[in-house]
């Protein structure tokens, strides 16, 4: 009888090793078809008319001229006149034409009359936002923060924060929709194949069973692609009106204006410690904007929680554009605020921040042991003790070098997931799950788990995902996919295998529970000589395949990880340019399934981290209320030359493996901003209070510190 628990270390032959992703050849040969690449017979191209105003009442919409433009086949009004648009870029009208250019021409011919209203697009503190825009959250308190702060021997005060950034998915949001009678097929770039089908059915008032969503490949989501969005139903409406398939992907400017924004968070912080480095008190007032929505309380102080603390958060409603979940929502910003304040506190003591963090490691809670191991491992990799110098130690020349660190956490428990597994009489094996591969390696993980279960190589497993016709599985957000699909696959595959054992046991003169599948054979576990090949065993099925189902199994997965990162930067004090020379990342995520794609996740997170630490920011124009950089010239992503020497170490083995599978997408992206900021402060002797750390901010911080600030 096959046991569905993960095999012990000595029995694993695939789990934990490195494998190239199974869809790598399709991607690297350009054959992979993303939603953007789907071309259907007679397909039209959709474009949208966007509000140029950040806050306005739509008085009237006139599409008559647009409808007469060459090539136009359908027009769909997306916005109800009389209502208010709340950001520049909000959709008003969608239309479909024979070519993209014709659709763009026609969009320009739509006449919309607006009554412009006052807007707020700057990232101001609540006091400057006006009462109606600032929604104060409740105050949280632990211990006696005022008394502890008063008694603290060392205190620091500062303002820290992170501005609004976008997701900037390379494949813009969007879809192709096609009707066949009253049934809708939607090729969509989404993190949520199952959920979008349901949303579409609601928005269009058609049965959920009539909607099929397909996402074979998707070009980046990072938390911004969970919903059908306004353009999904609009695209379906256009296709219905025109009687032809419609492709409507967002243009780059629209993608950056409204299809994803990570909320800003800023905080005024007071932190206090004893001279020996014991952290005793934390008081913070934080605020931030998630656009027109409010926002939850960020996890401040982050991970390392002073025993006496008081926090308060205020959400500021602005017209910057709607916030969306961004890889590890609220964590990178909270890490910047917390880890930078603690780093300043360590510098004020003065104390090596590594010693400071280790001294207070118990304040991290139940993962304290992991944090200690990971900080020490990272320090060894970085050669921290040899390289570290007290903050602002002057080095010869204009270029200053510094080190910084940060720690982080995330949940990453598996989402609900159903899988079906089929063993065919010819020995081929299929696993079907309505999940999606965001580029994290989901397909490969599913094949790996099934292969491990059957004693077959990864290449023997056919994985079918990205289609709502397969068994329902959760949205890929919050690092929940790997736990969901690995456990449902393991469960389904084990169930299928036990059915196979039941069919073939008599041929081996054994009981089903005495059998095992390993090394391409079905054999008697205690007497491996009594064996038949996998194909011979499957041939005993006759004409009928085995089909078995499986669900997420909580005893195969867990949640809650630690993680430590250290950065080494150089800062040119004459130009203000920061270079990230090195980052070491030490990360746990329970049982690592595929080492190669796990490491890729962490490397990718570090590179995204460099981008948000140094370069990217959604810049808004206060006068017009519009985004100033909805493009890729001025919305800056790090390039290859911006990436230094990065190293990743995954914590595995006893203490980690037995926890089961835990998600990895979010945690490593949390710390780079804080670690890089701390390294910059260590290098130049002063804190650049907010990220991104642009050259202008570096020079301003240096000038302010030298007391020679220019007017």
């Amino acid at each position, binding site marked *: 009888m096959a046991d569905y628990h993960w095999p012990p270390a000595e029995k694993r032959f695939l789990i934990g090793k490195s494998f190239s992703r199974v869809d790598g050849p399709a991607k690297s*040969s350009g054959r992979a078809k993303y939603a953007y690449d789907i071309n259907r017979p007679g397909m039209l191209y959709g474009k949208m008319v966007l509000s140029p105003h950040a806050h306005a009442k739509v008085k009237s919409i006139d599409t008559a001229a647009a409808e007469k433009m060459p090539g136009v086949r359908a027009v769909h009004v997306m916005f109800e006149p009389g209502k208010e648009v709340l950001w520049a870029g909000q959709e008003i009208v969608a239309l479909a034409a024979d070519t993209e250019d014709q659709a763009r021409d026609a969009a320009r011919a739509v006449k919309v009359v607006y009554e412009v209203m006052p807007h707020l697009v700057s990232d101001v503190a609540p006091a400057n936002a006006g009462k109606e825009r600032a929604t104060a959250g409740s105050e949280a308190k632990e211990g006696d923060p005022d008394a502890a702060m008063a008694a603290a021997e060392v205190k620091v005060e500062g303002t820290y924060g992170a501005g609004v950034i976008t997701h900037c998915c*390379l*494949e813009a949001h969007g879809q192709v929709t096609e009707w066949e009678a009253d049934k809708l097929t939607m090729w969509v770039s989404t993190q949520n194949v199952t959920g979008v089908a349901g949303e579409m059915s609601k928005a269009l008032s058609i049965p959920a069973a009539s909607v099929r969503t397909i996402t074979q*490949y998707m*070009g980046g989501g990072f938390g911004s692609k969970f919903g059908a969005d306004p353009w999904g139903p609009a695209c379906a409406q256009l296709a219905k009106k025109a009687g032809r398939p419609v492709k409507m992907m967002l243009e780059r400017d629209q993608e950056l204006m409204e299809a994803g924004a990570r909320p800003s968070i800023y905080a005024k912080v007071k932190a206090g410690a004893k001279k020996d480095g014991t952290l005793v008190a934390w008081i913070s007032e934080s605020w931030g904007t998630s656009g027109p929505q409010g926002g939850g309380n960020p996890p401040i102080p982050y991970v390392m929680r002073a025993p006496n603390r008081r926090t308060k958060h205020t959400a500021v409603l602005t017209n910057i554009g709607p916030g969306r979940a961004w890889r590890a929502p609220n964590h990178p910003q909270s890490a910047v605020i917390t880890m930078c304040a603690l780093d300043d506190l360590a510098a004020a003591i003065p104390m090596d921040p590594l010693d400071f963090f280790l001294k207070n490691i118990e304040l991290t809670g139940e993962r304290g042991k992991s944090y200690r191991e990971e900080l020490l491992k990272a320090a060894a990799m970085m050669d921290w003790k040899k390289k570290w110098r007290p903050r602002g130690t002057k080095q010869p020349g204009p270029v200053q070098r510094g080190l910084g660190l940060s720690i982080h956490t995330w949940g990453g428990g598996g989402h609900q997931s159903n899988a079906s597994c089929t063993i065919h009489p010819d020995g081929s094996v299929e696993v079907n799950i309505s999940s999606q591969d965001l*580029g994290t390696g989901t397909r490969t993980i599913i094949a790996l788990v099934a292969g491990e279960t059957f004693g077959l190589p990864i290449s023997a497993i056919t994985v079918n995902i990205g289609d709502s016709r397969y068994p329902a599985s959760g949205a890929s957000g919050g690092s929940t996919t790997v736990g969901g699909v690995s456990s449902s696959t393991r469960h389904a595959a084990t169930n299928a295998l036990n059915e196979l054992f039941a069919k073939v046991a008599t041929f081996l003169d054994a009981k089903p529970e005495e059998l095992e599948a390993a090394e391409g054979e079905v054999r008697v576990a205690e007497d491996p000589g009594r064996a038949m090949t996998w194909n011979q065993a499957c041939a005993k099925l006759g004409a009928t395949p085995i089909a078995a189902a499986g669900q997420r199994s909580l005893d195969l997965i867990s949640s809650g990880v630690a993680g430590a990162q250290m950065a080494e930067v150089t800062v040119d004090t004459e130009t203000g340019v920061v270079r990230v020379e090195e980052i070491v990342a030490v990360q746990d995520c329970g049982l690592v399934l595929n080492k190669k794609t796990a490491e*890729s996740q962490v490397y*990718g997170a570090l590179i995204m981290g460099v981008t948000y630490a140094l370069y990217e920011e959604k810049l808004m124009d206060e006068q017009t209320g519009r985004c100033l950089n909805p493009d890729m010239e001025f919305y800056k992503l*790090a390039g290859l030359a911006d990436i230094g020497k990065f190293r990743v170490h995954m914590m595995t083995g006893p203490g980690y493996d037995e926890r089961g599978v835990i998600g990895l997408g979010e945690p490593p992206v949390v710390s780079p901003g804080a670690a890089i900021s701390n390294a910059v402060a260590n290098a130049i002797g002063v804190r650049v209070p907010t990220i991104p750390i642009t050259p202008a901010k570096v020079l301003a911080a240096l000038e302010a510190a030298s007391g020679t600030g220019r007017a």
Partner: protein
Amino acid sequence: MSDERDPASRVVPRPDSPEADASADSKGFSRRSFLKGAGITVSAGVIAAEGLLETATAATDTKVAGPGAVPITLKINGTEHTLEVEPRVTLLDALRDHLDITGAKKVCDRAVCGACTVLLDGKAVYSCNVLAIAAQGHEITTIEGLAAEGQLSPVSAAFVLHDAQQCGFCTPGFVMAVTAYLKQHPNPSYEEVTAGLGGNLCRCGTYMGVREAALDAAKRLSAGRA
């Protein structure tokens, strides 16, 4: 963003270069017709800076293309395709929307990110920044032309081996950029690859793998030549 990218590695043949002009003439288009057709998308400042405005105005006796669709012939991966497109249609849109050749991706649509990279006479170009009519007479190679379906070019294979891809949307552009770069720089150093591939952007953060893949592919290609 670092300014250490090497723009020289990115050759964007200008449709108004003498070379492009000569080939365009053979297809019935001239500098004049190009400017008429593309005037919408090419700013006057750019044209004036190139010192071509006067020349263009002087040449009044040539055929004008557009604004309606015109027949063009593109030689893509060794096969000639005849299609009708408006003169304003980019090579990228012609490939993707008219010919269903979708390996080249549209991301920034303004010659920044490199996701649309194809080869024009063996040199990497941003196909979002080349008009389809101007690509006539050139050998166009898309990623589909690097290897037969089901097979991988040495560069693509190196990308798989070094996991130089996550979501994969930037990957075809990177593969084309590396392919072109290695033709010109067969034995690049780590630093040279870093600078030379600065014309492509990735959001998932696959640069570590891309760098390794490029260096590894260079070795394999060199070994193949030896």
